[in-house]
């Protein structure tokens, strides 16, 4: 198929015509789902805020179901499709494989997303994001998700195909760039995830049609979480790739060690899928041995991988900054970083939030026995709002500030507000996660309409601190929604009203990535080793926090009723 290649004058990146259109449409569709997810977020927050309690129970559960599906599946998956096409076609400077199939995938995802949302808003499919059997939704609820999954699988295949095209057309020499390698990790995990999803949602769809009599509730939970948790691991691999991408574009940072960073991604592929167990630790159906081995990703190898990335990403930035001459003291490199650039500030807040809040709370939550203190409490959504929201979503938001001029050829409007947005969103979301975890530690349930238990035969009064935490959840939740809404306004506003930028030279042929001369690689080899003391201090701070918080929770556990 005839196509053209545009070289962006700002970034020097090369966009193939079809891939560029696919990235734009996927990103825009993602933003629209984020808008729906954001409106539902506000309604959820205003209902769980005990002083307001906006919605009646039935509408609350309906809206909460929509919030989960639209955010965790639709917003993230559409954006990830754009990331996959970018990491393959753009970074490798080649044409995209089978664009028609990529478009088919896109439209399947759009149609599937709409069908599932119609099912939810019709009101008889308020089964939550997890849709645990034997609670039943309408058949089109499941059908929509299946279509989205098939569409995403097609997109993933196009990504794999594009890697083959680049290799065949020799648009690059040697190994894949690290960011593409990270995206490949995400795509491999995605394939596993989508197959798990198909393995449970197709039978569940049959069951809702009456073609299958029964699905075992425990089996459903195990296989469903092969989709539910593993899809969050796609996000981890994708946003870690985005961190490396940001570091490379803004600082020209190179990985401290290609070998270490790639090995860490490989550990994700090998072990992350075991995380289905995180959701089954308080279940009757699995043995303790199974739980211990799986919940720890086979002895914490995937945690080790995340700790490695948590070191090498800021380390790469520090090394690059020091090479530029910011060498005073421990932290000049960080102080003099471009904090006014939302691409950087968003990425760095995402890194800190994911490491300190999401990472640590996740490991504690996933400890077999400690899980009993937190299972199904408000701690769980608290945890994942610091991973998938102030981690993944914020990373995607910040990279979009880069993509607007480069991919959409528009200047950002209201640059002052663009500067503020990552701080407003990232910090309020981080605090939101913390106070949610606080409420969960006091026992408050997730997915629960009424802390006062109206209509119950007894009364139970939560501690005052729990109400305080829920009030703070309301306040910071609203702030976070404002921050998210601001991002949508800025991005959509820039796409519609931003000053048009020059698209750059268009050619019929891709320009391959130039092969570096032997001399250049000799310089890169070893001899320019740069110490990173600031990163070491940050990493040790993370480690100490991690160890303290981990053992504090064992202490809490030792104080409850005896169980055996």
């Amino acid at each position, binding site marked *: 198929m005839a196509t053209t290649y545009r070289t962006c004058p700002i970034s020097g990146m090369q966009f193939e015509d079809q891939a560029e259109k696919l990235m734009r449409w996927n990103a825009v569709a993602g933003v629209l789902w984020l808008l729906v997810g954001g409106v539902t977020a506000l309604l959820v927050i205003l209902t769980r805020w005990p002083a307001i309690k906006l919605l009646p129970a*039935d509408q609350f*559960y309906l809206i909460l179901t929509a919030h989960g599906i639209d955010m965790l599946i639709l917003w993230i998956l559409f954006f990830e499709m754009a990331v996959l096409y970018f990491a393959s076609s753009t970074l490798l400077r080649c044409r995209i494989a089978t664009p028609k199939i990529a478009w088919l995938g896109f439209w399947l995802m759009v149609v599937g997303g709409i069908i599932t949302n119609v099912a939810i808003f019709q009101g008889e499919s308020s089964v939550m994001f997890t849709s645990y059997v*034997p*609670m039943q939704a309408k058949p089109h609820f499941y059908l929509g998700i299946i279509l989205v999954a098939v569409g995403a699988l097609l997109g993933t295949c196009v990504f794999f195909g594009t890697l083959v095209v680049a290799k065949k057309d020799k648009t690059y020499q*040697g*190994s894949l*760039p690290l960011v593409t390698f990270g995206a490949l990790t995400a795509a491999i995990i995605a394939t596993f995830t989508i197959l798990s999803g198909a393995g449970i949602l197709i039978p569940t769809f049959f069951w809702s049609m009456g073609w299958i009599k029964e699905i075992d*509730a*425990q089996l459903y939970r195990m296989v469903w979480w092969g989709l539910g948790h593993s899809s969050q691991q796609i996000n981890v691999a994708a946003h870690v790739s985005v961190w490396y991408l940001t570091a*490379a574009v803004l600082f020209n*940072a190179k*990985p401290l*060690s290609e*070998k*270490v960073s790639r090995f860490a991604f490989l550990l994700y592929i090998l072990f992350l899928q075991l995380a289905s167990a995180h959701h089954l*630790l*308080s*279940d*009757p*159906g699995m*043995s*303790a041995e199974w739980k*211990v081995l799986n919940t*720890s990703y086979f*002895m914490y*190898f995937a945690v080790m991988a995340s700790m*490695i990335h948590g*070191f090498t990403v800021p380390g*790469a930035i520090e090394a690059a900054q020091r090479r530029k001459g910011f060498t005073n003291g421990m932290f000049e490199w960080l102080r003099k970083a471009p904090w006014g650039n939302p691409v950087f500030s968003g990425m760095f807040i995402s890194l800190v939030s994911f490491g300190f809040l999401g990472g640590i709370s996740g490991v504690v939550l996933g*400890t077999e*026995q400690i899980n009993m*203190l*937190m*299972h*199904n*409490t408000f701690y769980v959504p608290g945890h994942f709002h610091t991973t998938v929201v102030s981690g993944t979503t914020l990373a995607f938001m910040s990279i979009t500030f880069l993509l607007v001029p480069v991919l959409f050829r528009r200047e950002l409007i209201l640059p002052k507000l663009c500067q503020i947005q990552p701080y407003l969103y990232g910090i309020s979301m981080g605090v939101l996660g913390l106070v949610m975890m606080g409420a969960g530690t*006091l*026992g408050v*349930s997730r*997915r629960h309409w*009424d802390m006062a*238990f*109206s209509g119950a035969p*007894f009364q*139970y009064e939560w501690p005052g601190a729990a109400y305080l935490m829920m009030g703070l959840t309301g306040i910071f939740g609203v702030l976070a929604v404002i921050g998210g809404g601001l991002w949508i306004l800025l991005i959509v506003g820039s796409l519609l009203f931003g000053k048009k930028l020059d698209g750059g030279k268009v050619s019929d042929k891709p320009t391959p*990535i130039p092969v*570096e001369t032997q001399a*250049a690689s000799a310089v890169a*080899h*070893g001899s320019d*080793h740069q110490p990173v003391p600031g990163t*070491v201090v940050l990493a040790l701070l993370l*480690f100490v926090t991690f*160890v303290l918080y981990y053992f504090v929770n064992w202490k809490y556990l*030792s104080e*409850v*009723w*005896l*169980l*055996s």
Partner: protein
Amino acid sequence: MSAILPPSDRLWWKQPIDKVEWAWIGIAFVWGMIMFAMMIYWHIYGKQNLSNEAYKTTPELFAAKAEKFIAENTIRTETDQDIPVVKVPAGGDGYLIARLWAWYPILELEEGQTYKIHLSSMDYLHGFSLQPVNINIEVIPGYEHVVKMTPTKKGTYAIVCNEYCGIGHHSMLGRIYVK
């Protein structure tokens, strides 16, 4: 070069890893092993481990066993719904039914005694969330989970349902007395 270009050294896997990176990998590895060992240690020496004893059952079978237990051990009824308060024999078996939208019956336990509490659901998933102790266990239809519990303090405890089970989920509140 940078992370968005192919590695400048074609033989990147032969480059030596810096000492600081090795040290951090070492810390992460050892910490992972400690956390892994901690879970096993707690199974041997810890006093809070979730029971592995579970059986496949059906709502009918479980309800029959629970009704027998209630008939034999009820000491009084409470609330205008006359919910039976059932004294679980010290060291013996107690049954707790989760259903839309109630925990049934009320159990009465003694401090320091160990009980085998059988949990199952009649319909959807439910969540056994004992407050203010904050112990949380998933209750699944078709599975009878036998959890050994030893209350450590006297008082009136609430069982909140913390697995979403439909429109009346928020009113699903149970009670346990510890004398």
